[in-house]
C-alpha cells in the first residue's frame, strides 16, 4: 500500500485567506480569538502547508469553535479532551501536522490532567490556548487562570483561589516549547506559532485573548500597559530557570514571547519502537497479521 498523504495539489503555495473555514466565527465582536485565528492562518500559509495535511483538534468553549473557522481537517471534541484526542491522532498518523486549540478552562481546568501528561510525553503537537481568564460560553464564571479578587458570577465576593501559571506549569511538566502571546500582537503570534509547528515536540502557546464581554479586568488595555516582549530582553530560551523567573512576573510587567525551548528531547512518536526506521503510520498499514505471526503466537500457547 502506498501512502500518499503528502500529495501536493498543483496549486501554488496557499495564502492565509485559503485557510478560512466554511463558516465565519460567531465570537463576540472584538474577541481576542480573532487574532489567534488570523495568526494561525498566516502561519500555516507561510510554512507552505496545505489544509489536508493539518488536523486541528479542540475541546469545548468559545475558543474551541476554532476548527470550524479554519480550513483544515478538524475535530471538535469533548470539553477538556482535545489533547488526549490530538495525541491519538498524532500517534496513529505521525505524518499529520496536529494543532490543538482551546481555552483556559478547557485546557487548565477540566483538561488539566491531559495537559500535564501530554507535556510529560512530549507529544509532537502545537497547543494554542486562548486564555481569557474567564468562562465565557457559560456567561462568566471564574476560571483556573482568573486573578485573585476577580468578581464573576460564581465569585460575587471575589476569587479567593490563586491562578495557575501556564508557563511554569508547562515547563515543569516537560513541555519542550513554551511561549506566551497576546492578541494585540499578531506579528509575534505568527513567529511563535510557526516556531511551535516546526518544533519537534510538545509546544504550548498561552495567548492572552481578552474576553470583551465577561472579563472587565484583563482587557486589551490591561495587557497593552504591561506586555513586554522577551525578544527585547536578550532572554535565552534554553535557560529554564530564567524562563520560570520571568514567567512569575505579573503585576507591573508581563512578558510575552518564547520562554523556553529544548530541541534535544525526542518526541513521543520518535521514541515509539514500532515507528522505528521511518515506519508508515499505523493508520495506513495493512490490518491483517501474517500466518507466521499467527503460528508464533499459537506456539507460545502450547
Amino acid at each position, binding site marked *: 500500500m502506498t501512502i500518499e498523504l503528502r500529495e501536493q495539489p498543483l496549486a501554488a503555495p496557499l495564502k492565509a485567506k485559503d485557510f478560512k473555514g466554511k463558516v465565519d466565527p460567531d465570537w463576540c465582536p472584538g474577541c481576542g480569538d480573532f487574532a489567534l485565528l488570523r495568526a494561525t492562518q498566516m502561519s500555516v500559509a507561510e510554512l507552505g502547508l496545505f489544509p489536508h495535511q493539518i488536523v486541528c483538534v479542540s475541546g469545548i468553549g468559545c475558543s474551541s469553535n476554532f476548527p470550524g473557522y479554519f480550513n483544515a481537517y478538524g475535530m471538535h471534541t469533548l470539553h477538556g479532551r482535545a489533547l488526549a484526542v490530538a495525541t491519538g491522532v498524532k*500517534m496513529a498518523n505521525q505524518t499529520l501536522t496536529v494543532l490543538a486549540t482551546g481555552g483556559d478552562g478547557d485546557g487548565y481546568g477540566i483538561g488539566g*490532567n491531559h495537559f500535564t501528561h501530554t507535556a510529560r510525553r512530549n507529544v509532537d503537537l502545537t497547543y494554542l490556548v486562548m486564555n481569557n481568564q474567564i468562562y465565557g460560553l457559560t456567561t462568566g464564571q471564574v476560571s483556573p487562570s482568573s486573578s485573585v479578587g476577580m468578581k464573576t458570577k460564581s465569585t460575587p465576593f471575589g476569587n479567593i483561589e490563586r491562578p495557575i501559571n501556564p508557563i511554569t506549569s508547562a515547563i515543569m511538566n516537560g513541555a519542550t516549547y513554551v511561549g506566551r502571546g497576546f492578541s494585540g500582537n499578531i506579528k509575534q503570534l505568527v513567529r511563535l506559532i510557526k516556531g511551535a509547528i516546526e518544533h519537534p515536540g510538545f509546544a504550548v502557546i498561552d495567548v492572552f485573548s481578552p474576553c470583551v464581554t465577561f472579563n472587565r479586568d484583563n482587557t486589551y488595555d490591561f495587557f497593552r500597559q504591561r506586555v513586554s516582549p522577551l525578544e527585547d530582553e536578550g532572554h535565552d530560551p534554553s535557560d529554564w530557570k530564567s524562563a520560570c523567573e520571568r514567567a512569575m512576573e505579573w503585576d507591573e510587567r508581563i512578558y510575552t514571547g518564547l520562554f523556553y525551548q529544548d530541541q534535544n528531547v525526542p518526541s513521543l512518536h520518535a521514541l515509539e519502537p514500532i515507528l522505528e526506521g521511518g515506519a508508515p503510520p499505523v493508520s495506513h498499514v495493512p490490518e491483517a497479521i501474517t500466518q507466521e505471526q499467527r503460528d508464533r503466537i499459537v506456539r507460545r500457547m502450547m
Partner: protein
Amino acid sequence: MSQGFDFSIAIGGAAGQGIATPGNILARMFVRRGLHLNAYNAYQSIIRGGHIFLTMRVRDREAPSHGDRIDLLLCLNQDTMTRHLRHLGAGGYAVYNADNVTPGEHQDGVHLCGMPVGELTGDAKNKLAQNTAALGVIAHVLGLDFEVLESALTLQFQRKGEAVVSSNVAVARAGYEFSSANFTPLADPLPENPEPLAVWTGNDALAMGGAAAGVKFYCAYPMSPSTGVLHWMAKNARELGIMVRQVEDEIGVANMAVGAAHTGARTMCATSGGGFALMTEAIGSAAMMEIPVCFINVMRAGPSTGVPTKTEQGDLWQALGASQGDFERIVVAPKDAHDAFNCIGEVFNLIDRYQCPAIVLSDLLISEGTFSVPPKEIDMSPPIERGKLIREANGDSGPYNRYLDTEDGISPRAVPGVPGHVHVVATDEHDEEGILISDEFTNPIKRRQMVEKRARKLDDYFSRVPAPEIEGDEDAEVTLVGWGSTAGVIEEAMEQLQADGVKVNRVAVKWILPFHGEAVAEAISGARKTLIIENNHSGQFHRFLRGETGITADGHIRKYDGEPFMPHHIADGVRAHLAGDVPGGVFVPDQEIIV
C-alpha cells in the same frame, strides 16, 4: 456421574506462595496431552497474604465450566487445609507439606498425602520446594511417567538456567518417589488425546481477537480484571506492529482511542466498570462524530470499587446507558474465551460498517479464567471489512460531505490527510457538511435529519448478526435464559438435569444491542416455564428482556456473592423452581467454597 475422565485439582495458599507456577506447569502438561482445561482462580486484591484458590478442571472432552467438585487439593498452607478439606469426597486427595500443615476432620476415603518436604529436599528453608515436591506427588497420583513432569519443569525453568532446572527436577523426583512408595494413584490414570491443545486466558483471547482483526492502536489504564489485555498487547506490540499506550486515566484512554480511530487505525481499549464509567462521555462522542471504536468492559463486582477481584454481570445497564443522549451502539456479551476471541473481529466489521462505537461485556470469569483451545480453531485471519472508509487520495476534489445523508444512512468516511476531503467532525450536532447547527441556528429540520441518518445506519444489523436459538430438549419442562459468560455453566447444569430425567432447553444471548427481540420472544414463546439466570442481584437482563419483548420470566436464579456459578447451583435452582419451592421467585444458591 458423566462418563470419561473429569478431574479437578485445587491449589490453595496465600498470595506470594507461588500458586501460579505449579498451576502453569500442570496446565501445560494437561493441554499437551490434548486434555481440556477450565481453570478459575479465586483471589483477592492483595500482593502478599490472603487466600488464593485456583480450581483447575481437566477433562477428556470440553470443559464448559470449572465444575462442581474438587478431586485433589494441594494445600500450600494450613489455612487452605482448614477451609477446604471438607470439600473432598471419598477417593479425593489432599496433598500437603506434613512439616507445617496438619489435616483435620475429613470424609471417609480421602487420601491424605502428607509430604515430609524438609526430609525429601534436605532444605527445610526453601519455601517453594513444597510446590515442586507436590508436583511430583500429583504426577504420580495422576499415573504419569516422571519424564512428563521433568520435561514440563525443564520448559518452565529453562530461562532461569540449568541449575534451577536440575534442582527443581530433583525435588520433584523426590516427591514422585515418595508418593510411589506411600500413596495410591488413581485407578484410571490421566488419559491422552491425539491432538495437543493450546492454553489461553479470556484476556489473551480478547487481545488476540483484536490483533487478528487488525487492531493497530490499543490504549488502556491498568484496571483489574481487564489488565491482561494490556499485558498481551504490550508484549506482542512490536512483533505485530500494534501501537500500545498506557494513558493517565480512562478519560484519556477513551478520547485517545477516538483520535486514533479517526485516522483510520482499528482501535480498541479495555477497562472494568469504574474505568468504563470514565470513558462514557467519549463513547457518546464516537457515536456523534461517527468514529468506530471498540470499548471492552471486563465486569467485576460493584458498585464503585466494589470487589475488584470478583466476578459479576452487573454492568449491563451501564453499557446500555453509557453516555448522555440517544444514540446507536452495539453491545455484545461473549459466552466464553473463544467466543470473545471471535467476537472482536465480528465487532470491528460491524462498527467499521456502521461507523459507531461498540461495547464488549466480558467479565472476570471469562477474562481471568484459563482455558484450553484447539490450536486449529484459532483463526487469526478473519475477514476484515472496513466499510466506506477512504484512506487514500482518490482523485476527488470535492465537494465532500462527511455526513452525507445517504439511503442507508452510512456516509463515506475520509480520514485526515486525504486531499479533497477536508472536513471537521464535531461532538456538537452538525449538518451533512459537518457544520455545527448547535450554536447559532439550531435547525430542527437538520437535527431530525441527522438523528434519523445515524439511526438508519443499523437498519440491516439483524441480517448480519445471528439471532440466538433455542438449544436442548424439545417439549422441555423448563427453559433457561442466560447471557454472556453463564453459557458454559448453564450447559453443564442442563446435562446434570437431563441425567436426572428433567427435560430442559435454553437460550444463550450474546448480541445484546440492538436486540433480537422478536427472535428471542419467538424462541421462548412455547416455554412452559422460563427461568432467567444471571450473575447479579437485581436481574438486569430480566428487566432488559422485559423491556424489549414484554416477556416476564417465571422465575430467576441469581448469584451476587462475587463467585461464579457452579453447575449444581443452577441445577439446584431449577429443581427448586420446578418443585415450586422458591419463595419470591428468585433462587440464590449458597457459595460453599469460601475464599
